[in-house]
């Protein structure tokens, strides 16, 4: 319940940031450089005197959009490929799964880093890279789920009733396979936020002055000894959302059992 509230809040931040803060995320106040957290500036301010809470609120849009894009790519492509592999079986399955093996063999952060280097440098490309690097795991989960479902009695029953292959696929296999992939997608939202943050740390981030959670944490780390809030408070916001998505994923998985 609380988890959904956290996620809804984050989505609210992304959709209508101005409702949550009166500060601009871009306009700095040169006299208030590195102000500590206070009633005026809940998360304090950064070097240019910009309100960090406002930047966190507005950053939700960049971060969640990127994450959503990443998850959509991973989910769409991964579930599609897994579905085809699991349902078609035989040579198609073998071919697809060998390709998936290859992508699984390259750790996703590594793959994402290479992809960002190749694609060039923007939030969308980071999302794309993170998404592409998780296609394989979605494909694998989807495939194994499809394989389980395909051997269920109710699928055999549907064939027995004269339902066509496509009908079985659309009405039985897809709906019953998606549940655990949806749980994985919820998990991937959290992983995506973290992956974007990690890439930010490694030097690949959103273009300034666009705020982005990972980048806020990554940039704030340089001042951690002197102005710890600059990194820790956005970090807490980020961690809270990730934990919330994990709990949602867990509860989705439980419901499906």
């Amino acid at each position, binding site marked *: 319940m609380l988890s959904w509230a956290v996620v809804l809040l984050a989505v609210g931040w992304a959709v209508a940031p101005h409702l949550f803060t009166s500060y601009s995320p871009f306009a700095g106040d040169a006299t208030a450089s590195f102000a500590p957290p206070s009633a005026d500036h809940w998360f304090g301010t950064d070097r240019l005197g910009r309100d960090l809470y406002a930047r966190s609120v507005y950053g939700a849009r960049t971060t969640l959009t990127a994450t959503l894009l990443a998850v959509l790519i991973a989910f769409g492509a991964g579930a599609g490929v897994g579905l085809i592999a699991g349902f078609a079986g035989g040579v198609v399955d073998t071919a697809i799964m060998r390709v998936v093996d290859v992508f699984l063999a390259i750790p996703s952060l590594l793959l994402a880093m290479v992809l960002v280097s190749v694609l060039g440098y923007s939030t969308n490309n980071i999302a794309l890279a993170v998404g592409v690097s998780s296609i394989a795991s979605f494909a694998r989960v989807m495939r194994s789920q499809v394989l389980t479902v395909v051997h*269920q*009695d*109710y699928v*055999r*029953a*549907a*064939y*027995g*009733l*004269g*339902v*066509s*292959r496509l*009908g079985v696929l659309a*009405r*039985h296999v897809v*709906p*019953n396979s998606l549940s655990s992939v949806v749980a994985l997608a919820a998990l991937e939202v959290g992983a995506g936020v973290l992956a974007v943050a990690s890439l930010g740390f490694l030097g690949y981030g959103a273009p300034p002055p666009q705020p982005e959670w990972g980048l806020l944490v990554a940039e704030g780390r340089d001042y951690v000894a002197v102005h710890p809030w600059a990194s820790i408070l956005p970090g807490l916001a980020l961690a809270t959302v990730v934990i919330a998505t994990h709990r949602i994923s867990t509860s989705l998985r439980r419901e499906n059992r």
Partner: protein
Amino acid sequence: MTESLLEITDLAVDYRTGRRTWTPAVDGVSLHVDPGEFVSLVGESGSGKTTLIQGALGLLPVAARIRSGTVAYSGVDVTGFNDRRMALVRGTYVGFVPQDPNTSLNPVRRVGAQVQEAVPEKKREAALESLRLAGLEDVERVFRSYPHELSGGMKQRALIAIALAGQPKIIVADEPTSALDVTVQKRILDHLVSLRETLGIGILLVTHDLGVAQDRSDRILVMNKGRIVDEDHEYTRRLFAANPARQPAREPRPAGGRVVLRATGLTKEYGTLRALDGVDLAVREGTTHAVVGESGAGKSTLAGILAGFAKPGAGTVHVGDRELTGLNRKQLREVRRDLQYVFQNPFTSLDPRFTVRRLIAEPLRAYQLPAGDRVTELLAAVSLDESFLDRLPAQLSGGQRQRVAIARALALRPKILVLDEAVSALDVSVQDQILKLLTRLQDERGLSYVFVTHDLGVVRLVADDVTVMKDGAVVENGPAACVLRDPEHDYTRHLLDAIPGVKL
């Protein structure tokens, strides 16, 4: 004065069903087992018998609580014992034989180690002795085996050995044979009876099968809705009446009639295993043809081939004039309008996401036929009313599900139904209802059934013809009345002997 080995007094157990709400599962049950006594506790699913046993052994799940009452072993009240204290009672004082031998042994440890653990002094010799006592031969080999290397019956004996290993005063057996073939069931139960005699221990047998209880018990307790009901109770009488053994056999029908389904020389191999070996079968129009056999006999493989789910290695199947084997997917679809299939387990054969309405309409939709009233009509045919239309399978009982599955199978007005163990997952009373339903439908609609079952008792009630199978081959076939009354083959005789409750 001899104290009862187990004395349950006024026990009430609740399950948590909400934050603050509790639902009773066992409600004021008292029973006792004296030394040397064989007591059977009979009840259908949901009667609370398993909860009662869990309560007695201190194995209730976290969501359950004992509201009142006591459990005492030899006068020691163990109610409220924690795990640590209860561990001193279990094994050494009360042995437990669980229901499913296939899941009740640790799959990654050798059987011997698992038995040895239960022996007080952890001696190997004692463990071997215990296995011997449980009626196993070649105990050295069993000792070294992993569970998957043993047959179901051997596993159950190993579990009995574990129960005996601590030299308990009483053994509680929870449906110890329901997962086993009848012939194996008979041997295991007979062995339990003999143990009572040689060791002088008490036995509490929990079962859903009245026949099993009747054959061996000193006393039978019937449980219904969390309470123990007495012999004269209406439920008890109904339960006894539902026992197939107590019911009249089917009126034999005239021989002859058109053959609507014919299999010739069916063979099927899985790797090196020959699952079917030249099976012939002929089903007459408007009759029921039973296929009987124990596990591994090949009857499910046969049913699958008859229904077009699998292709035979050799041989042919004809539905009416059409040959089923060798059809492509589209042609097969046409045949399916005449031939439908009902699965054994109604818990897996219905898509959990579909409402009853969608489930029954699905075949109609597949052939672009109008659903509408047809769905309610079909529902009525299986004696369910319209209130079920929007329910999901999870909201139905086992019997209701199987009715839905039958209604679905009837949607296309087929001529033939292949019923693969269609009643064996159901309680006796429900099974009885479904069998009556099937008979009624057959009479009304002139259906032909292929009735696959392991239960010869049921065959007597429904079958016109019977085929007995063993190891993939047909042992004998013929009119049901003849085969059951005067079996030609030893194996058939053997099977008939093992049917519980017939003697009474």
